[in-house]
């Protein structure tokens, strides 16, 4: 049985809520709106910074990978190495890429040296083996050559051995 002076719980909850609400100090709503503007502006700046960092990272990766492919000649060779006479010409630098006269002269000297080493038969470039009567096929991995040598070999194959001899 309830005491006579006991109020229903629901009513007391409502009353306590009102009392507590009166006690609590409420900051002005304008402060919240101002904070919202500050936060929005901060988010925009952060987003812009994020995009800039992302673009910069992509560019840096692209440049790094590009330079690693083009310049790093110490990288592991591909599994299918190929002979000097067996590469795809369309993927190699064209002979007229030698930009300066000095480079062209240097390439011609290199070509002359290669011809001297390989002999005059482009189909069977051989060097005499010191230990065997059988000729050894002289295999050159294209990746192992310097850019100048690569261009020189390219020119040599384009022009043909005969014209150089």
């Amino acid at each position, binding site marked *: 049985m309830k*005491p006579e002076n006991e109020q229903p719980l*629901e009513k007391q909850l409502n009353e*306590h809520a009102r009392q*507590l*609400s009166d006690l609590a100090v409420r900051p002005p709503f304008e402060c919240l709106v101002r904070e919202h503007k500050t936060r929005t502006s901060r988010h925009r700046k952060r987003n812009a910074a994020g995009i800039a960092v992302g673009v910069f990272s992509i560019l840096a990766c692209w440049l790094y990978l590009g330079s690693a492919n083009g310049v790093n000649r110490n990288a592991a060779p591909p599994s299918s190495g190929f002979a000097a006479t067996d590469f795809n010409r369309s993927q190699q630098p064209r002979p007229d890429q030698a930009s300066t006269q000095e480079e062209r002269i240097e390439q011609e000297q290199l070509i002359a040296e290669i011809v001297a080493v390989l002999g005059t038969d482009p189909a069977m470039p051989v060097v005499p083996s010191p230990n065997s009567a059988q000729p050894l096929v002289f295999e050159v991995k294209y990746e192992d050559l310097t850019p100048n040598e690569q261009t020189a070999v390219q020119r040599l194959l384009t022009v043909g051995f005969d014209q150089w001899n």
Partner: protein
Amino acid sequence: MDFSSEIEQHYPGLHRAAVLLTGNSAEAEDLVQETVLRGLDAQKRFRGSSSLRTWLYAILMNVHRSQLRSHGRGWKRVLLWFHSAPRADELSAEEIELRREWHESLWNAVAQLPIEQQQTMVLRFAEDMSYDEIASTMACPIGTVKSRINSALRKLNQDPNVRDLQHLCSVAPT
């Protein structure tokens, strides 16, 4: 009337609910501020399928739940205590009074209930929401709302501290 002015109309109610849920001004301010900021941010997503009032209270309850969840994690709780617990002499007189009143009120007992029941009780008995509105705010069926309220009231009625409180309140001069 622009959106922030519409939200401002519900600001006192949101603040009251936040105070009842947290029991102190600092956390209540954080809670209501986050609610209003999220409301302003999500202005474009408000489709008007529910009333602005229930939508804002739904945000408030979600923020409250996630704050409790993040505060409840062990080491974070300790860190938070070190960072946020103000010394007694740092509290204003109003804040001390509010905390004391809250601890002595029925809402302290309500805060011991499971969070869904606590939130439902706040919406029902502090904000005077209908069962429909509470169901829309809490995204649950009306039957669940009724069951939560019944269960909460039953627990409160069985709580000896609440009985003492009721007795004290009823004999205290108004």
